């Protein structure tokens, strides 16, 4: 069975999603255990797969027994292996952490919720694992559709925000599909590795250049890079907290992975970084994104919306890191995928705990929270320190690599943007801490009901695990970079 880990990682969650959907109509209490089983198996196979990649090198799995380029193949190297483990681990931890809030928010719709949850994770895992450009589009749409539904279930403005997300997401996915169409027109193939071998002969063609531009535009919309970001803050801020802590850490990060994959594997560094002006303009775009998103985060008055703008700034980090085009920059970008997934999960889970007890997250209502919810707030502090980039936490190290990459490439604008955003993050989070720590506490719940207390244990334990993980990841950064990320970089990068 060990040969089939690549298939298991997708098939088990997929089949489980069907069982969950059926269980929602028959026996609702079964939904959570089945989802748990699915996430456990995919996490286990993801780790096993990464080990296999480390010991034996690239893993290729032919679906349907057809060899590529005629059939669809999975193609797993270090880069996918790492992202797979990240996705599976976040989904696994989040499943525990959100159990109570799911039961609270969707008591009658547990079946559909968990089915969508598992399908969303399946879609993301599929995006990461596949080696076929068109297959990636189909899975992109699965992840997107489930995302629309999960985000659209919130109160008030959520459906409108989610509909705007549908429009932008569809434009993004359609552009990606169009780009793949241009590549197919030029090469006649859909398999990523095959396209990469066919492309060098026709690098001069306008079709290839256009394919590159269209693909990147589509992915920039999907990952919410600054001028194309406007769907994200509303969609994330009004969503139910049970779904946001799954979607926020994963969606943008997986899209960044797709960008890295398209830029490095399909087009190869020789094409992507051929023109210094193009790379430099992407880096500048990223720098502007970081600065603008940080400034906009300053003007927000609720925790979730502020975090949404921080996510947009973080996307700028990773895009900039990739287009620096040197070893340190790309290492930083890949390391930041791991770290950012972990720290976004941490802060959103903490925000979810606050919302679970407080029912709202505007800054005015956070007074005295450190005394009332010491553990959740402690986790928020660790997450915040990591986002700011304070040393033993992991956020520092990826930022360090990005800074080194920026200096190597001579992109001082990007370096300045990184430092600026760290300073803004300090201001952002210390404002929350100030309100939470120093301002006098209200004795009762704002609406006058039960006094606020710490979130239930089953929400706290996963949060604590994630917070600890932030520090552990920081300590093991050297190992991760030297044993995994070093091999994920393609040859020929300075």
């Amino acid at each position, binding site marked *: 069975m060990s040969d*089939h880990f690549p*298939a298991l990682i997708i*098939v088990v969650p*997929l*089949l489980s*999603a*069907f069982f969950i*959907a*059926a269980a929602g*109509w028959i026996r609702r209490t079964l939904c959570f255990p089945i989802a748990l089983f699915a996430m456990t198996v995919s996490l286990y196979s993801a780790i096993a797969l990464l080990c296999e990649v480390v010991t034996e090198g690239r893993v290729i*799995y*032919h*679906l*349907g*027994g*057809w060899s590529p*380029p*005629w*059939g*669809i193949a999975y193609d797993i190297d270090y880069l996918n292996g790492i992202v797979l483990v990240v996705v599976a681990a976040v989904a696994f931890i989040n499943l525990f952490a959100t159990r109570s809030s799911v039961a609270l928010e969707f008591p*009658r*719709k547990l079946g*559909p*919720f968990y*089915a*969508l949850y598992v*399908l969303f994770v*399946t879609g993301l895992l*599929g995006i990461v694992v596949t080696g*076929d450009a*068109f*297959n990636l589009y*189909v*899975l992109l*749409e*699965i992840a997107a*559709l*489930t995302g*629309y*539904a999960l985000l*659209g*279930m919130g109160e008030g403005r959520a*459906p409108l925000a989610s509909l705007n997300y549908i429009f932008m997401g569809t434009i993004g996915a359609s552009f990606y599909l169009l780009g793949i169409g*241009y590549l*197919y*027109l*030029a*090469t*006649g*193939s*859909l398999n990523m590795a095959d396209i990469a071998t*066919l492309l060098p002969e026709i690098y001069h*063609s*306008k*079709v290839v250049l*256009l394919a590159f*531009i269209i693909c990147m535009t589509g992915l920039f919309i999907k990952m919410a890079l600054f001028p194309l970001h406007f769907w994200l803050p509303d969609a994330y801020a009004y969503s139910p907290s049970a779904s946001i802590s799954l979607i926020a850490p994963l969606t943008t990060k997986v899209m960044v992975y797709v960008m890295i994959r398209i830029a490095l594997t399909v087009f190869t560094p020789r094409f992507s970084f051929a023109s210094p002006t193009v790379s430099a303009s992407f880096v500048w775009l990223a720098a502007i994104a970081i600065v603008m998103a940080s400034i906009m985060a300053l003007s927000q008055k609720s925790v979730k919306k502020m975090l949404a703008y921080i996510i947009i700034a973080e996307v700028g980090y990773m895009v900039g890191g990739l287009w620096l085009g040197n070893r340190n920059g790309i290492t930083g970008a890949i390391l930041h995928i791991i770290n950012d997934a972990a720290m976004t999960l941490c802060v959103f889970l903490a925000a979810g705990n606050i919302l679970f007890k407080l029912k709202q997250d505007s800054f005015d209502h956070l007074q005295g929270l450190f005394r009332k919810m010491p553990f959740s707030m402690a986790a928020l502090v660790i997450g915040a320190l990591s986002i700011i980039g304070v040393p033993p936490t992991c956020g520092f190290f990826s930022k360090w690599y990005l800074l080194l990459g920026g200096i190597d490439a001579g992109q001082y604008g990007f370096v300045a943007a990184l430092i600026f955003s760290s300073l803004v993050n300090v201001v952002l989070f210390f404002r929350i801490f100030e309100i939470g720590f120093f301002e006098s506490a209200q004795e009762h719940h704002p609406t006058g009901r039960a006094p606020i207390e710490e979130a239930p244990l089953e929400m706290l334990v996963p949060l604590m695990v994630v917070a600890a993980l932030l520090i552990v990841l920081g300590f093991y950064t050297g190992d991760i970079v030297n044993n995994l990320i070093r091999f994920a970089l393609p040859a020929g990068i300075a």
Partner: protein
Amino acid sequence: MNKTIGLITVVLCGVMLLIGTADFPDWGDPQSPASRHVSPYYIEKSIPETSVPNIVTAVLADYRGYDTMFETTVIFTAGIACFFLLRVRRKEPEIRYYRHIPTGITLRIEQGAKLPEDSKVFERIDTLYAPHDLIIKTTARLIIPFILIFALYVIAHGHHSPGGGFQGGVILGAAIILFAISYDLRSANRKLSERAAALLSTIGVFIYAGTGALCLLLASNFLDYSALASILGVDPVTARSHGILIVEIGVGTTVMAVMVWIYYNLSSRGRQDEGL
């Protein structure tokens, strides 16, 4: 202001795409890369390898069957998403009225009282009750059986002619939607309840993924239908052909059920009482 920016974006996109067409191969050129590299293999090998004359079906359900599995999953996801977003449950009203059709007597049923059996003798009447039009009702009754047969033909004959699980499933679903439009949502709900539609959509997509998983259990790769040869008792090539038929049936079931399910939810705003 916004309008100008939007217009400029749109025109820029158009101009960019237009410039790209200069390097396109001529339209319909048999020597273009798209027609030379991968596709000739499908055209030449689909009969010897899968014994399916319709190349599109062969590629769809076998060579790229993994895509199609997720295509079915997309549809399934859409069904669940519509349900998840829209469905609201309302309590049954306190007082309900039923008419006994042969005598025309109206019965008033109060909360907790025993309902008349769900038979043809009684008819529920309430404010949502919509009288059916005789002409439309009769026409629909005449047409629907033919549509259903055609849909089954499309699913079953996908190997040899255009069509297959997806198209057939949509036509099946359209037949039930036609029934729901010409009668009303409640009558359609009696023929295919929401719960049945939901379970059928799950079953269909499970048939597809389960066939793939069965191949996995038979020590082949996922979705490698030739592994089914030992179960079906035929040679591997015919097994592929049969495997395609099995998954097409799965696709058809899911698509039919989901189309009906989405229609139920959209046309009644998720209340499942009053249709179009």
